[in-house]
């Protein structure tokens, strides 16, 4: 058969990648939620789907977790085709949806055991695993309290614990840290890193570049259902310019002079505003560079009024990649739907 070599190659790829999707599309009436997304996530790695509201992140996750049938394209997850063997896919994945889905009338422990039982675990095994997860997620003291009385962060942790009960090979996390305070957010990052260290493959969605940066091996930027950029955090940063230091001189008249002095010292000056006395510097060597730079200026008698570190945000990514602000892209989409 002439297609044999092609088929064989596809199978080899399937065996390697934890998630392999080609040309996924999904329309809701007039709205094109996903417009041809390809993605490959290697086993044991983290990929972040980064995009603004309405970009198609949740829809992509719902397709890959067999909750939604794509209009076009195909995908394998954990080696199984989402359309042909959805049951096999479900047996190997965990999903923490965008909105916390826990049973408020059951206790934390009861929630976990119920999900474990539905995930085909024996009663005793599910109970043991629940104890383990409750301890790991700092919920042991509240294990026998109704989940309805939990705080937002506790609910989110219980939700994540529920998706881990059956030790999934591939974990889908849809905006796992949205709505969490900064401390809980860092806690969630640590948990995710730990899971990955243990060999779990993770596909997460986020609206925050720093989150994708901190967690992901590969970042896929999507907008209007399309992939507009992909790469490691470093390659994306190269593209959008990485961290910048914004300086403001007390005396704007000396801007050009200061700028020239910095350039001479081997600093990459990205721009200068003579009127306000501002200088923008691309940071390439981290905090050390900031100290050196300020010392250099100080030595030469330039007095600084203000120093701020500017880290690229999702908005910068969008500005660079599409020439549009992320919010505008979202607004345009919303208007288009109305």
């Amino acid at each position, binding site marked *: 058969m002439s297609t044999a070599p092609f088929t064989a190659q596809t199978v080899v790829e399937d065996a390697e990648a934890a998630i392999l999707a080609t040309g996924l599309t999904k329309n809701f009436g007039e709205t094109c939620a996903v417009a041809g997304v390809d993605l490959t996530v290697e086993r044991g790695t983290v990929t972040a789907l980064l995009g603004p509201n309405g970009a198609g992140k949740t829809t992509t996750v719902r397709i890959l977790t067999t*909750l939604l049938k794509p209009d076009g394209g195909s995908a394998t997850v954990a080696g199984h085709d989402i359309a042909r063997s959805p049951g096999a896919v479900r047996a190997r994945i965990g999903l923490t949806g965008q909105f916390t889905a826990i049973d408020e009338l059951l206790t934390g422990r009861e929630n976990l055991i119920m999900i474990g039982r539905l*995930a*085909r675990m024996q009663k005793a095994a599910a109970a043991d695993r629940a104890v383990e997860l409750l301890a790991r997620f700092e919920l042991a003291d509240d294990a026998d309290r109704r989940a309805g009385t939990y705080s937002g962060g506790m609910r989110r942790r219980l939700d994540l614990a*529920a998706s881990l009960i059956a030790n999934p090979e591939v974990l889908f996390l849809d905006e796992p840290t949205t709505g969490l305070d900064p401390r809980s957010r860092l806690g969630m990052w640590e948990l995710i890193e730990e899971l990955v260290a243990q060999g779990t493959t993770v596909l997460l969605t986020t609206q925050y570049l720093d989150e994708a940066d901190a967690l992901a091996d590969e970042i896929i930027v999507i907008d209007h259902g399309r992939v507009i950029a992909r790469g490691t955090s470093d390659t994306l940063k190269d593209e959008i310019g990485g961290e910048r230091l914004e300086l403001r001189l007390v005396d704007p008249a000396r801007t050009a002079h200061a700028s020239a002095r910095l350039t001479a010292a081997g600093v990459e000056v990205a721009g200068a505003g003579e009127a306000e006395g501002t200088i923008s510097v691309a940071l390439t060597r981290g905090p050390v560079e900031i100290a050196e730079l300020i010392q250099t200026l100080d030595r030469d008698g330039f007095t600084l009024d203000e120093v701020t570190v500017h880290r690229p945000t999702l908005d910068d990514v969008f500005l660079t990649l599409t020439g549009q602000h992320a919010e505008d892209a979202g607004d345009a989409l919303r208007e288009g739907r109305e």
Partner: protein
Amino acid sequence: MSGISAMYNDTAVLFRRSLTHSFRSPEILAGITISPVMFVLMFRYVFGGAIDVGETTYVNYLMAGIFVQTIAFGALTTAMTLANDLEKGIVDRFFSLPMARSAVLTGRTLADLLRNAFTIVVMILVGLLVGYRPGGSVADWSAALALMLVFSFAISWVGALMALAVPKVEALQQLSFVVILPLTFVSSAFVKTDTMPGALRAFAENQPVTQVVDAVRALTLDQPVGNTVTASVVWSIAILVVSIPLAAAVFRRMGTR
């Protein structure tokens, strides 16, 4: 796990979940204890003096109606709790698991069956306290209870179907009012149908609630049952035969929409 044992396991897990809800949710708890008691007392004492039902006392006449009305209202609980699960993403979570999806419906409707059985017992006890003096043999009562439970199972599948059609709790409240209220009040549950005007009477006399009420009433008051028992059974089975496959089809489609 094979298909059947998986189905059994998942149904059992979700049956227990629904049952636990019944005892922990203040709304459901009130629905299965306080409100039926209120209904018995209200109808017994408010309308009891004004309505003449001829051959027996009003409370004796009333109880069959209250049983079936409460069962029919129970379908709203089925609908609301399922809609809540759909709205909150709990069903999505279930659907991402390798479980038998239909267990989401069977576990719930079976738990609702048990819940209704419990409510019937509560109502019988309250009725006895306020002058309910039924007749009927053990066989008559067994038949009456069986008819009510089969009807209960059937109507909670209608509730499930309503929730699948309108998975928003608020909108569902409106819809259920339009469906369940006429079924229970335009029936023989509280008054005899022969005083109703033409079209209303035709509806009242031929709809399922009246059939079940009449059958239960006749069985428990030593009256001739006529064809009401057969009609009740036929109605309940017809409702099940239509609503189960329909609900299952909607559910299947949801997963692969």
